[in-house]
């Protein structure tokens, strides 16, 4: 993940979340096209300033194409798959703005800034600790999953019997995850995470 802490064009996660929320309102209350284009360009600007140049360009092109969508006429077409595909694109068109803003939030926020934002928002620990753990666990989860898949490949366990297959992935994965869960909480507790004395925000 790129280090973005110093970038003045990278708003903090709270701002980005608020933007996503506001753009989410446009789904239900339609906005005019100028406003939408302004939002798209603004998002692209932030992408560009955070070294996601491809995303910046892609964002404008995709939104341009989606805007043209209602002009496509397929009344005569009998191809059901084409129709289905277009239906899906229409859904995407309606939700495009908040979704892109969400992608921006995910791509340009590092874990540290998200966690310190949670501290600033004074989220209760019952929510902030699980969220911090999610970031911590996700890479482990990917690693474990990969290892299990490899082991299955070597053991010659194939996809022939899908139910068995799912059982064979689920069992070790859930058991490993439970073990890791213990390890993470041991690491956290031996570092005094339950200390009730007031924390002073480090906002690193």
């Amino acid at each position: 993940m790129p280090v973005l802490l110093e970038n003045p064009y990278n708003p903090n996660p709270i701002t980005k979340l608020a933007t996503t929320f506001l753009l989410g309102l446009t789904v239900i209350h339609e906005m005019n096209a100028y406003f939408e284009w302004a939002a798209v360009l603004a998002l692209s600007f932030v992408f560009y300033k955070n070294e996601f140049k491809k995303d910046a360009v892609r964002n404008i092109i995709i939104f341009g194409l989606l805007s043209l969508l209602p002009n496509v006429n397929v009344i005569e077409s009998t191809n059901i798959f084409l129709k289905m595909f277009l239906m899906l694109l229409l859904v995407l068109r309606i939700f495009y703005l908040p979704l892109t803003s969400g992608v921006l939030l995910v791509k340009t926020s590092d874990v540290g800034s998200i966690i310190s934002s949670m501290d600033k928002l004074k989220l209760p620990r019952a929510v902030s600790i699980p969220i911090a753990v999610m970031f911590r666990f996700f890479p482990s989860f990917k690693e474990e999953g990969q290892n299990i898949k490899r082991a299955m490949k070597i053991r010659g366990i194939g996809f022939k019997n899908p139910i068995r297959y799912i059982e064979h992935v689920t069992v070790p994965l859930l058991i490993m995850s439970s073990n890791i869960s213990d390890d993470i909480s041991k690491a956290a507790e031996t570092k005094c995470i339950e200390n009730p004395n007031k924390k002073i925000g480090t906002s690193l």
Partner: protein
Amino acid sequence: MNNGKSLKVKDLVVIGIFTVIYFAVMFGVGMIGMIPILFLVYPAVLGVVTGTIIMLFMAKVQKPFALFILGILTPLIMFAMGHTYVLLVHGIIVMAIAELIRRAGNYKSFKHNMFSFAVFNTWVCGSLMQLLLVKDRYLEMTVPMMGEEYAKSLERLVTYPNMGLVYLGAILGGIIGACIGRVFLKKHFAKAGIV
């Protein structure tokens, strides 16, 4: 294992971990939601597949609010990723009901946990509810593309009564999933000593 009834750091870590697993599986199953029509059965399928995960979670953390927090984290992430507030509000209501059912069974009873999960599983219908809210706008866009007729048949398909069927599917899927979960719990996790 369950000393005291308030959530400890250990439980909160378990919540975080199971949210990741749930989310990952949900995303995997979500691929079928890409095909229109099929997303109407998606909630049911999701329930069948994730039953084991959530039942194991409920067996591990038999405390108030554990399921509630796990349940609102996923819509919260979806919300951050650009879904509307409808999903989040809908999720909070659903999880509150699921939590209450669980409480009635003192967090232990299988029957209560099963129904609790069945209700829990309906949160994902919220993403379809979002669609209902934008239905008019959607149809308006469809007409020039696919014609009046198509739009009309679509209008007939996506209605509140039909949404009811989706919810029913979600609940049934949840019950089936919970039962599969119970089999797994007995066959594997209890024997392996992790619950």
